């Protein structure tokens, strides 16, 4: 059937398998080149393979939980949303979460996702105790820092290229409530927001929404949002009695694809200005429920359709600390010069690098998205070049179009991964993305 990632570009016909058990995974694998797929929240073609795309959503059982350590064992297709629904009422929360809860645990491992706490806690992979991985021979191997350690390390952030993840053991963190104490700090420009990030390194969560259209001295105008899990005694008396219950919300579904014109430069500009104004108005402290804080976009199901049928492209890079300021300035200027508005632009301070192929490194990451057009492609190439000039690298979970040469220039680890895959006979685990990037 026709498949695509969350960005709806590219679309490709793939033979889709939906196995229920190991034997069915093995049978799907036997057809030749194949890649595992989670919930398709990667933006581009990382979870697509024409010959066999193995969707793991039916591996959706939770298997064990240890109260003393918070260790949860689940099958790879369990959604993060299900983990939260089950364990937040008992006082546990994921140690790291991306900006959507509709991802599978397998997908979180494969992309080694980062969250708003990356500067403090690192990626999801740091909380993974072991992985059960099906290899080329159809055998299932337990991989951990003790057993099959190299395979374990490459699987975390390996984008499905080391095998099919069947089960994962990872540790949840204890929380006292379902509420986040949020502090919003408006920032005049890039200097200001970077200074605020550095000052607030002790905050558990931090992320900035950045206005990509403001020029001059206001370049990089943004709103920095800090967050802490609220303790029970920070809640009002009524909420303290039920610290894990939050008001029910209604989710809306984007009913149709919006015509391309609905998302023009004007609306983007208006949205960005409004967002910044709201942030200023809301500056200060607020108690926000977990869902609104971590997953504001999830409230509009299928929001990717606002970009119309042609889809959109994400761009996410990370720049090392010492060149981040110069690089971000150039990136923002290039976006403004292009006239392509980025609807959602997120800036985040990242902590230390970890893992042989995971995306994050110490520095600043900028995530942008653009509706798909001919101009976008040129802009993206420009952004690639600026990133390369400043020693940055790219997030494969967001990529749909980068060239193999660009990846190699950005990340010498790509060749190491390719060699590891060759040596271990893993070449048949391959996605459209890995084929494009010659991994």
């Amino acid at each position, binding site marked *: 059937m026709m498949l695509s990632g969350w960005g709806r570009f590219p679309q490709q016909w793939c033979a889709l398998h939906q196995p229920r058990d190991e034997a069915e995974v093995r049978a799907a694998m036997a057809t030749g080149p194949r890649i595992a797929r989670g919930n398709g929240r990667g933006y581009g073609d990382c979870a697509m393979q024409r010959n066999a795309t193995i969707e793991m959503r039916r591996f959706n059982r*939770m*298997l*064990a939980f240890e109260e003393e350590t918070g260790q949860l064992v689940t*099958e790879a297709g369990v959604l993060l949303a299900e983990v939260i629904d*089950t364990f937040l009422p008992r006082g546990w929360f994921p140690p790291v979460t991306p900006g959507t809860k509709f991802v599978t645990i397998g997908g979180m491992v494969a992309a080694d996702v980062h969250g708003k706490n990356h500067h403090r806690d690192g990626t999801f992979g740091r909380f993974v105790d072991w992985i059960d991985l099906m290899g080329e021979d159809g055998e299932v191997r337990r991989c951990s820092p003790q057993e099959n350690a190299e395979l374990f390390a490459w699987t975390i952030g390996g984008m499905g290229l080391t095998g099919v993840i069947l089960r994962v053991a990872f540790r949840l963190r204890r929380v006292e409530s379902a509420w986040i104490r949020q502090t919003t700090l408006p920032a005049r420009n890039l200097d200001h927001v970077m200074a605020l990030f550095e000052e607030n390194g002790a905050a558990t969560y931090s992320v900035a929404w950045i206005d990509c259209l403001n020029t001059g001295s206001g370049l990089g105008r943004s709103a920095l949002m800090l967050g802490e899990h609220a303790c029970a005694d920070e809640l009002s008396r009524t909420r303290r009695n039920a610290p894990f219950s939050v008001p029910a919300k209604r989710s809306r579904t984007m009913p149709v694809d919006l015509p391309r014109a609905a998302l023009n430069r004007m609306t983007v500009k208006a949205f960005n200005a409004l967002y910044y104004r709201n942030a200023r108005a809301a500056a200060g402290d607020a108690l926000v429920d977990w869902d609104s804080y971590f997953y504001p976009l999830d409230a509009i199901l299928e929001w990717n359709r606002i970009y119309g049928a042609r889809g959109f492209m994400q761009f996410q890079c990370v720049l090392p600390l010492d060149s981040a300021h110069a690089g971000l300035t150039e990136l923002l200027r290039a976006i403004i010069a292009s006239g392509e508005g980025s609807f959602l632009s997120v800036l985040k301070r990242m902590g230390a690098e970890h893992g042989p192929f995971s995306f994050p490194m110490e520095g600043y990451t900028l995530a942008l998205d653009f509706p798909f057009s001919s101009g976008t492609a040129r802009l993206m190439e420009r952004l690639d070049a600026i990133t390369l000039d400043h020693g940055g690298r790219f997030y494969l979970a967001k990529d749909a179009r980068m060239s193999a040469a660009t990846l190699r220039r950005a990340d010498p680890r790509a060749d190491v991964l390719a060699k590891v895959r060759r040596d271990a006979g893993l070449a048949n685990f391959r996605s459209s993305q890995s084929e494009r990037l010659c991994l």
Partner: protein
Amino acid sequence: MTAAPVLIIGARSDIGMALAHRYAAAGHPVQLAARASKGLEADAANIALRHGTSASVHEIDILEPESFAAFLDSLPQLPHVAICVVGLLGDQATSQTDIAAAQLTMRSNYEGPALLTGLIAERFAARGSGTIIGISSVAGERGRASNYVYGSAKAGYTAFLSGLRNRLSKTGVHVMTVLPGFVRTRMTAGMDLPARLTAEPAAVAEAIFRAATKQRDVIYVKPVWRLVMAIIRAIPEGIFKGTKL
């Protein structure tokens, strides 16, 4: 845990598993019975973790009636609700020429389910309470060329449940018959099913759960099926025999 235990016979099926989750979500301990039941340990763990109830696993082969009494004795507790989901679609064309295949379909859909639910009914009657839910099929409402071996066995089971309900109506034991139309499960995987007439397993489970609390006698899951079957039953045999349905 005070909520009443629920036994699900044929728990591996999509409908059975959806029922287990639905009852567990309402706080009921669930007893999962199936053949090759070892494979269900992970499902039991999943149910217990998600819903905070207990879930146990039990071996049953519906083709071995001599084992039924021991099976019931082995349960941690006589359940309050027993649901039989077991069924086998079989292949109609094969069943026309292969007696063993036809017999397997008949035994799996009629003999086994009827004998086991009958035995459970006796125990419930002795206790004076309980709910028996049998999953039969709309296919049992009228024999059709395309699946009458399966359909006739389901017809037998529907009649058995009806008689059981009639007999036990004054005893405090309730018997409910479920006649699902199309359901998107392993049984129908790969078939081209009309969307308006097809239900998801979770919706079937929800409908059964609700109907059982209201002590309904016969349900169709999707109400449109009541109408569809009324029409199909009303067609005179002289015309019906010439149709292709």
